[in-house]
C-alpha cells in the first residue's frame, strides 16, 4: 500500500464529527451583534453605553487612581495652604501663554519678618597676641540669630535659629 492509498483509507475510515445544530446560530448571533459579548465588557463602545453605565465604568476603572490623586491634592493643600477666595487662580493655559518668573509661580510666598541677635556669652582669652596696632587679646562673642518668615495668606510662621560666634581682637591698652 503506497502513501496515497494509505491516506485515502484513513480519510474514509475517520470522518470529522459534525458540529451541533446551534453552533451556526451562535456564530451568526455573535457576528451580527458583536457588541453583545458579556465576557468582554470592554468591547462595548463608549458611544453605545448609557451615561450612568459610563460613569459606573469610569468609577470602577479609575476609582483608585482618582482616590490617590485626591489624597495627593489634600496633602499638597495642607502643606501649602488653601488659596484665598480673593486670590486670582492661575490657569494652566494662562501659565503656558504668560510665562512668569519662578518666584511668581510659587503658590504661597513667605515674607521675611525679622532677624534678631541674642548675646549668649562672651569669653576672653588670657593670651596676648602681638598685632600691627600693638598687643591685643581675643574676645569671643556667642550669639543666637533668629530669622523669622511668615505667610500673610495663611499666617504660617517659620523661625530659624542659628548659633553664631564673633571673635574680636581687643587692644590690651583699652583694658
Amino acid at each position, binding site marked *: 500500500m503506497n*502513501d496515497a492509498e494509505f491516506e485515502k483509507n484513513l480519510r474514509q475510515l*475517520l*470522518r470529522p464529527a459534525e458540529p451541533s445544530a446551534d*453552533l*451556526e446560530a451562535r456564530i*451568526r448571533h455573535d457576528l451580527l451583534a458583536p457588541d453583545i459579548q458579556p465576557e468582554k465588557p470592554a468591547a462595548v463602545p463608549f458611544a453605545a453605553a448609557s451615561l450612568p453605565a459610563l460613569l459606573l465604568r469610569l468609577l470602577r476603572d479609575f476609582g483608585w487612581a482618582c482616590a490617590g490623586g485626591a489624597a495627593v491634592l489634600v496633602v499638597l493643600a495642607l502643606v501649602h495652604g488653601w488659596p484665598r477666595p480673593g486670590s486670582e487662580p492661575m490657569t494652566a493655559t494662562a501659565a503656558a501663554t504668560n510665562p512668569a518668573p519662578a518666584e511668581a509661580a510659587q503658590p504661597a510666598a513667605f515674607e521675611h519678618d525679622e532677624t534678631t541677635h541674642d548675646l549668649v556669652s562672651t569669653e576672653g582669652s588670657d593670651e596676648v597676641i602681638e598685632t600691627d596696632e600693638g598687643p591685643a587679646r581675643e574676645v569671643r562673642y556667642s550669639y543666637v540669630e533668629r530669622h523669622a518668615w511668615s505667610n500673610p495668606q495663611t499666617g504660617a510662621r517659620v523661625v530659624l535659629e542659628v548659633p553664631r560666634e564673633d571673635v574680636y581682637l581687643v587692644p590690651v591698652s583699652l583694658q
Partner: protein
Amino acid sequence: MLGGVSPIEDPRLMNESDAETPWKICYRELAPKLLLFARQWVASPADAEDVVQAAFVKFWQHQPMAQPEHYPLLYSTVRTCALDFRRSCERRIRREANPDAGVVREDTPFFDYAVEQREEAALVELALRELPVEQREVVVLRLWGGLTFAEIATALDQSINTISSRYRYALQALRRDLKPYSNERR
C-alpha cells in the same frame, strides 16, 4: 481589517435572507474540519465548539471580505484560541487546586465512526493520538482539513520543509503502529 469594512456594515454578512453569505459558505465547508482541529487541544466537543465559535467570529470580524485563500489563517486563529482556552483551563485548575480535573479527557473520540468500522476506526484514532502534537496537527490539517503543505505552513507559521518532514514522520509512525492490525486483517 481586510478591505476596511466592519462586519456590521458588510452587506454580505448582514443580508440574512441570502443563504450564501461568505461566512456561511465558509462555515458549511469548514466547520467539521475546524472542530476536529480544535479537538487536538481541548477536552470535549463542547469546548471545541466554543473555541471554533470564538475563532470564527474573530476571523470574520477582522476579515469580512475573506476568500478561500485566506482560510489557512482561520485554522491559525482556531489554534490560537484553542491554546488560549487550554491555558485558561490549566490556570483555573491550578487556582482551584483540583488535581483530579484533567484538561484533556482522552475518552471522547475526535471522529464520527461508521458502525461497521467502529473497531478499526478506534484503533486508527488511537494511533493518531499517540503521535506528537506537532505531527498530529499536520496530519489532521493535511488529511481531514484538505490543506496543502504551503497552507499548513501558513497556518502553523512554520516552513514548508518542517511541515513536510513532520507529515512524513507521522505517516511512518501511523504505518508502523497500524501494521499489526493490517496483517491481522489479511
